[in-house]
């Protein structure tokens, strides 16, 4: 068996990416109470969560732990696949991991000791960055997996985001699938004809992208004509009617004060002191 040529591997990546977007949308069609909440409630709680998490001092570790309750409850309550989301978090880590990795090298002040081992401030703050990263990324992913992109956009519009921007988001999302399909077809057609030559040279690359762009511009024209024919008025229909009622108020009233509480009091330390108090 010879390894697959570069073209085939790249194709696999494209299909994987498409599949990923599609899968997130499939998850959003679930029917749990969390799915049914008005998107505004979920947007507000998620933002409050992220602000609370990143507002901690850079050496914070233990006080961040209770915040895991929010993404975990969202995942469990929404019936989302935990392993899949975890894999997604791990795949997208690079920048934070990279920049954070300098902390242990640059901040060598010993903060505390466990047994004989001195833990430097850099390691603590690096670990803190990783925890924040895990928390904020899972929160964003659960938001989209519980709500779906079109509904998030609807929520944004109701939260007074300018209409042209919301329409732009909806259009973009609609055509990502179409155009990535088209790009994938181009790449596939080429890789079927070049056999083992894996890399793509600059000139053919420019011509491929250029043609894709020309096709895109023609498509935009056709879409515009079709819109005119149907009397588009800047409103995208959504299947799920939204309503800001009691469940939404309850959702916000449950979570936001909890975030404040967890931000102000270090619950794990209190719990730990209480427990170690028994053995002292």
């Amino acid at each position, binding site marked *: 068996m010879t390894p697959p040529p570069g073209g085939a591997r790249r194709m696999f990546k494209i299909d994987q990416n498409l599949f990923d977007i599609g899968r997130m949308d499939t998850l959003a069609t679930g029917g749990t109470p969390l799915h049914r909440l008005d998107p505004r409630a979920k947007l507000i709680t998620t933002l409050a969560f992220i602000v609370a998490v*990143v507002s901690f001092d850079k050496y914070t570790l233990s006080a961040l732990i209770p915040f895991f309750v929010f993404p975990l409850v969202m995942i469990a309550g929404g019936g989302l696949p935990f392993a899949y989301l975890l894999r997604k978090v791990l795949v997208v880590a690079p920048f934070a991991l990279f920049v954070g990795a300098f902390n242990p090298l640059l901040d060598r002040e010993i903060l505390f000791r466990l047994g004989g081992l001195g833990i430097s401030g850099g390691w603590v703050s690096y670990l803190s960055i990783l925890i924040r990263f895990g928390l904020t990324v899972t929160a964003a992913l659960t938001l989209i997996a519980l709500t779906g992109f079109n509904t998030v956009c609807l929520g944004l519009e109701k939260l007074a985001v300018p209409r042209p921007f919301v329409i732009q988001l909806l259009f973009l999302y609609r055509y990502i699938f179409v155009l990535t399909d088209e790009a994938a077809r181009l790449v596939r057609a080429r890789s079927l004809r070049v056999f083992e030559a894996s890399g793509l040279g600059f000139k053919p690359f420019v011509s491929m992208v250029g043609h894709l762009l020309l096709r895109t511009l023609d498509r935009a024209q056709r879409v515009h004509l079709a819109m005119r024919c149907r009397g588009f008025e800047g409103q995208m229909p959504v299947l799920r009617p939204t309503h800001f009622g009691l469940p939404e108020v309850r959702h916000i009233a449950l979570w936001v004060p909890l975030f404040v509480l967890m931000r102000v009091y270090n619950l794990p330390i209190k719990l730990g002191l209480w427990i170690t108090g028994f053995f002292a």
Partner: protein
Amino acid sequence: MHMADALISPAVGGTMWAATAGLIAYSSRKVKQELDDRKVPLMGVLGAFIFAAQMINFTIPGTGSSGHLGGGMILAILLGPHAAFLTMASILTVQALFFADGGLLALGCNIFNLGFFPCFVAYPLIFKRLVEGRDGQGRIFAGSLAAAIVGLQLGAFGVVLETLFSGVSELPFGTFVLMMQPIHLAIGIVEGLVTAAVVGFVWKARPELVTAAASPAAGRGSLRTVLVALGIVAVLTGGALSWFASANPDGLEWAMFKTSGSEALARPEKGVHASLEKIQEKTAFMPDYGLKTEGGDAQAETEAHSPWPAVSPGTSLAGLVGGILTLLLAGLIGFGLKRRANHTK
């Protein structure tokens, strides 16, 4: 070069969100005023094109790495600054939500770095100046190349400044700048070449698309308005967020104090020295600092030396125990809900 939530403080994230929101509102109004409803689908479809085109890679000779088309500059050339900014913002929003590139709080920073600089600075000041009135293959090529490089350099510098003011990362300003700018110069040259080549390709096939964007009428005088608007936004958010920064010493002020102090810069030079010293110190004092011995002197000494006064071995043990227990508790709650959800299905 996406910023991540984990690296920024709320003050920086909030300020950049406010600036970006202002720019989005401003650009939306401009796009609406143009009353060119052909642009509505064009923006959406071109945004999707940027996504799709990033899946086609070419091999950079001799390096083994690959390059692809960057977004901001080609959009600015084809759509003009306002529509391009909205399109770039929408692309980054989708990336933040689906691929968790960056994050929600860092979204403002990312839109600003990758949208504002190419669309409102590099495009009007470089591309338009070079191409305006006298289009031709050479000028369009040079204009797109230079504008793409400058746009990316400014964006990379934005990342450095935002990271610095957030104060989460320990990287000193000088090191970070020296790391980011050359890397992004290389990336910018590749991206600029690709942009220039693709724009040249389109210009040969459909010249009216490129020349329309480069015409003197498009986007004239937009920069001054934008800068004035930005100034207002900056003053407003500065005022609104200052209560936050002062209530929290770990916010903006703290970061500024920290980075302006010279000790942060001096430390890396004697890194080996410092670490050797630390090892020595550690081995010498080990028995005194053990967990079990809670002798009053050692305790006092740790607290005096510690840069973070709240930490003592006792509380860090408590933090560890409590942290693990809380994590277990959170997991149990999640597990219980999952069981219930499965039951009711």
